[in-house]
């Protein structure tokens, strides 16, 4: 009995040291049902996040009073989106026309300092839940820079932001996008920033702030503060990407000890 207590105490210490699924016990030569179902639930949540429909119009309405434009990428549906990342990087004809019409109606919308794009990416769930707060935090960091209408994009990959920024002739584009869901976090957002956006920009010409979520990730305000520093530095130096470093303090690690104790 003393041994059993010592054993439980040891495993409790080991489990607290990692969010990994250790010390699950065993039934025969495999997992206990409880662990199987817990895994299946986490996987189901991640799958649901990947396939959840993105209500772009509702998100646009939630962003009021900011002006918004809703567009689609060239990926027609979710299956095409997952198979063809190239289509998710291109605007649909309809989407391109919609942006062009907006600028034709009000030429002052073109050539702004900053364009913000909100894309579903691989987690519509995450974007639907967290993008409005994050966009407001980002806008608060602009400090007088002019902002184009916020574009809400369905079927979006990161580089779609460059195509949109180019049509809007924006000096900078900021893409807020749902990250690939993991088993522990299904609603994480990423922020990508490109100076002088145009089609064909390489990944190395973008800056990325990832892991914006509530389970030990970056808070929207902390992420926006980092973005604000990068944005000003990028405009000052006229570039973005690997040659641009965050001039502020180092980013906090994406994982906090607290997570290990959650479940």
């Amino acid at each position: 009995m003393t041994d059993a207590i010592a054993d439980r105490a040891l495993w409790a210490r080991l489990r607290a040291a990692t969010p990994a699924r250790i010390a699950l016990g065993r039934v025969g030569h495999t997992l206990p049902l409880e662990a199987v179902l817990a895994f299946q639930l986490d996987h189901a949540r991640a799958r649901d996040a990947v396939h959840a429909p993105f209500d772009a119009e509702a998100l646009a309405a939630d962003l009021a009073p900011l002006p918004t434009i809703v567009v689609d990428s060239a990926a027609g549906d979710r299956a095409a989106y997952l198979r063809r990342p190239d289509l998710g990087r291109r605007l649909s004809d309809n989407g391109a026309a919609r942006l062009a019409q907006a600028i034709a109606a009000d030429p002052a919308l073109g050539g702004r300092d900053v364009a913000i794009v909100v894309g579903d990416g691989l987690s519509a769930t995450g974007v639907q839940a967290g993008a409005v707060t994050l966009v407001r935090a980002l806008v608060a960091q602009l400090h007088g820079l002019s902002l184009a209408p916020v574009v809400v994009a369905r079927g979006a990959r990161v580089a779609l932001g460059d195509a949109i920024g180019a049509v809007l002739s924006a000096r900078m584009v900021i893409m807020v996008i749902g990250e690939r869901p993991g088993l522990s976090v299904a609603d994480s957002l990423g922020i990508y920033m490109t100076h002088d956006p145009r089609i064909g920009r390489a990944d190395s010409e973008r800056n990325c702030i990832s892991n914006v979520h509530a389970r030990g990730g970056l808070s929207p305000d902390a992420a926006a503060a980092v973005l604000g520093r990068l944005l000003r530095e990028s405009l000052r130096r006229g570039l973005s990407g690997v040659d641009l470093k965050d001039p502020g303090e180092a980013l906090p690690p994406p994982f906090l000890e607290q997570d290990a104790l959650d479940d």
Partner: protein
Amino acid sequence: MLYHSNFAGERHRFDTLAAVMACATPARSGDALAGLAAHSAAQRVAARSVLADLPLRQFLDVALVPYETDEVTRLIVDTHDAAAFAPLAAMTVGDLRDWLLLPQTDAVALAQVAHGLTPEMVAAVSKLMRNQDLIAVAQKVRVVTAFRNTIGLAGRVSTRLQPNHPADDPRGIAAAVLDGLICGVGDAVIGINPATDSVPGAFSLLTMLDDLRERYAIPTQTCVLTHVTNALEIIARGGPVDLVFQSVAGSQAANRGFGIDLALLREAHDAALSLNRGSVGHNVMYFETGQGAALSANAHHGIDQQTMEARAYGVARAFDPLLVNTVVGFIGPEYLYDGKEIIRAALEDHFCGKLLGLPMGCDACYTNHAEADQDDMDTLMTVLTVAGCTFLICVPGNDDVMLSYQSLSYHDAMALRAMTGVRAAPEFEAWLAKMDLLAPDGSIRALGDGAAGLVHRLTGTGLAA
């Protein structure tokens, strides 16, 4: 050169050997993404009929990736063993398929032709083979490598213990290592993917793993899967490097994307050998590959992803690795869309690697945006085991909490051993027996006295503190 077929009354024309290869490949999303896939299911079969009639020599005469501009092609061509190829020299690709399946084509015969085969030849023949053919032939190949234990012997499947932690916390990693050892996992390697790719970080993790291995007296090898240049730096600083790891791909340009070339791999191989840390053998390299790596770097030269993958094995075999594995479902659904494509690709990769003479293992895995789940992985681990896969990667509870993908679990390894009777490397198995973890039938015992008892037997470890 044009390639024609008049197959069952349908005429098909292919402009290049690359087109024949790509169109003959079983359907997968990556080839469609690259615009290389067959336009129809019938065209796919027609391409196979063209491929079946091509002489194997064709692959020596026609370079799919240019010799002049690609050092991987030069490596493949310049190290081709004409004497080993001689018995196959008059065969077509279809003849090779039939020869491979003959009962008298045994382990010895297959080993004799391994260096006469090029990656392109084995890729070509794999496209004519059903899954069962890929299993039946791979099962006959025997590739044995060694460092602190002996890997690849008949009736054995080794496992990599992958104890990753999102912040590289040493206690968290040690906890995951202990949990894996209790399940009998870790004879291929105890290998960490570090969250932060730095020399000091990798050095301290490596030292921690080495201490753990020494204290437990475990007959296995450890590895921190950091970039080869970091490993060289760690070796220069006197770090305990058992295996040098590197991801490799099938073209010079794709390898440049990984920040490597063949000269750098040679330098690393020599440096690791110079440490002379192996006790029963001197295979010191560990490579990972995966279909789609070249395409994702836009360095595929218009060649289908499976052929490019086989060319990566051409790179790997130049360095006598202890371990090679395909990370088959990791790269995402734009390359392998679902469980069917992942399982097919894993069997192709295993077959091609084995035929070329590599100790081929597999990370049977998938991401959350692929159409796959643990049922697919159960199928995959079972067919790979029947195929004689050298080793499988295992993580706690199927969930890699650092890389955010799902692989096999420690428990899956236990289930496999119980289901199929496959055993761990003999030296490691002896250690399991000493730790009272081994049942007489080779399965892994549940600890009667729990982990505390084991830790007590492994006295002196910091874990129980």
